[in-house]
């Protein structure tokens, strides 16, 4: 690891001030991606600003119509909350138990790893991302490979998920890393169907053809014939683009079957 200065912020404002005054700074949430990256000298920063001391970012709050997950809520806290079963299932399948004891929602979506699970939850459940400065709708948050709509220094404070009438997440894990080769979140909220796919492309995306088909007929059969364009899909030693495209169909159908 290269040298850096460690800071523990007591408030979002303090975190942002520290960030603004640094040449090259990074926020530290759970650290499950950041610390291995620093260890392998793949990143070199002046300042690491730990968000773990900021009370307002912690915890999971539920109301009748939504669930608000703090930016620093650990995966296992989300997995222990039974409000949205699909979210519980998704959170309980991230990484491994030790990772889930540390990793956070805010850290995950701010990093926007193309194979991470949480982006599928935020996009597939139509969450709203609350930040230190504003709210960002899911459809605008994930902008590309490791890219988000967050500005430099902006902190994810929470994500608010509306209660779906039904939702399911099905994942085909990478056998080595256990990230998603393909993960599909299917939901219906206030009559609106969403199908969000992670792992397959450089960034999480919605499959509108499936959403349309499910809106008309919410059954796995209605999407079984939909062909997925894999021309922009990831291809690696674990799965070719073609296989990923096939898995998107299978995972989506399995998700739909669970809730129809």
């Amino acid at each position, binding site marked *: 690891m290269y*040298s850096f200065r460690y800071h523990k912020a007591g408030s979002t404002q303090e975190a942002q001030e520290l960030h603004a005054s640094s040449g090259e700074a990074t926020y530290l949430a759970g650290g499950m991606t950041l610390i291995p990256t620093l260890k392998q000298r793949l990143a070199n920063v002046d300042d690491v600003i730990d968000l773990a001391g900021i009370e307002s970012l912690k915890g999971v709050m539920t109301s009748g119509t939504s669930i608000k997950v703090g930016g620093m809520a650990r995966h296992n806290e989300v997995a222990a909350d039974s409000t949205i079963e699909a979210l519980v299932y998704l959170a309980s399948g991230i990484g491994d138990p030790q990772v889930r004891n540390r990793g956070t929602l805010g850290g995950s979506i701010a990093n926007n790893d193309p194979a991470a699970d949480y982006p599928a939850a935020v996009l597939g459940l139509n969450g709203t991302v609350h930040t230190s400065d504003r709210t960002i709708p899911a459809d605008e948050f994930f902008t590309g490979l490791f890219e988000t709509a967050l500005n430099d220094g902006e902190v994810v404070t929470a994500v608010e998920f509306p209660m779906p009438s039904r939702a399911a997440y099905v994942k085909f894990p990478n056998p080595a890393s256990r990230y998603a080769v393909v993960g599909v979140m299917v939901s219906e909220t206030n009559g609106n169907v969403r199908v969000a796919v992670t792992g397959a492309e450089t960034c999480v995306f919605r499959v509108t053809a499936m959403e349309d088909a499910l809106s008309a007929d919410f059954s796995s059969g209605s999407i079984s014939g939909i062909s997925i364009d894999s021309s922009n899909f990831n291809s690696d030693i674990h799965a070719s683009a073609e296989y990923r495209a096939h898995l998107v169909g299978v995972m989506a159908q399995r998700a739909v079957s669970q809730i129809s």
Partner: protein
Amino acid sequence: MVDVTFSVNGKEHALSVNDNALLSETLRENLNLTGTHIGCDTSQCGSCTVHLDGKAVKACTVLTAQAAGSEVTTIEGIGEPGSLHPMQEAFNEHHALQCGFCTPGMIMAAIGLVNASESLDGDAVRKGLDGNFCRCTGYHNIVKAVLSAQRNM
């Protein structure tokens, strides 16, 4: 350097460490607790698993500074010959270790798993040990040991 005060195996320590010191490094190098092992660089093998405020974490992926004010428990803090933790006892009884290198992390992960669960069957144990690699045992006896220890914890 950052000043870190924390409790390790019930004992308070006040240390000055590099900002980038990992908890695993501090345990091994500053406190000579070499039971916490380093087996990879990507936070996967789990050999470095310790408990941070009662929860299993990978000490190679926690900055020492992040552990300030916390209670850390390592393999050296859970039992010793004559008064072993039930999980240590079960690992010995069921031959759940061979070379011993993954063992401290495996035991700490297994204790964390049992503590976090109502009751576990074999499949749940296997799933729950996702964060720990063992190259020697094929896991068969580890699963047996965890199921057995669960009854005595």
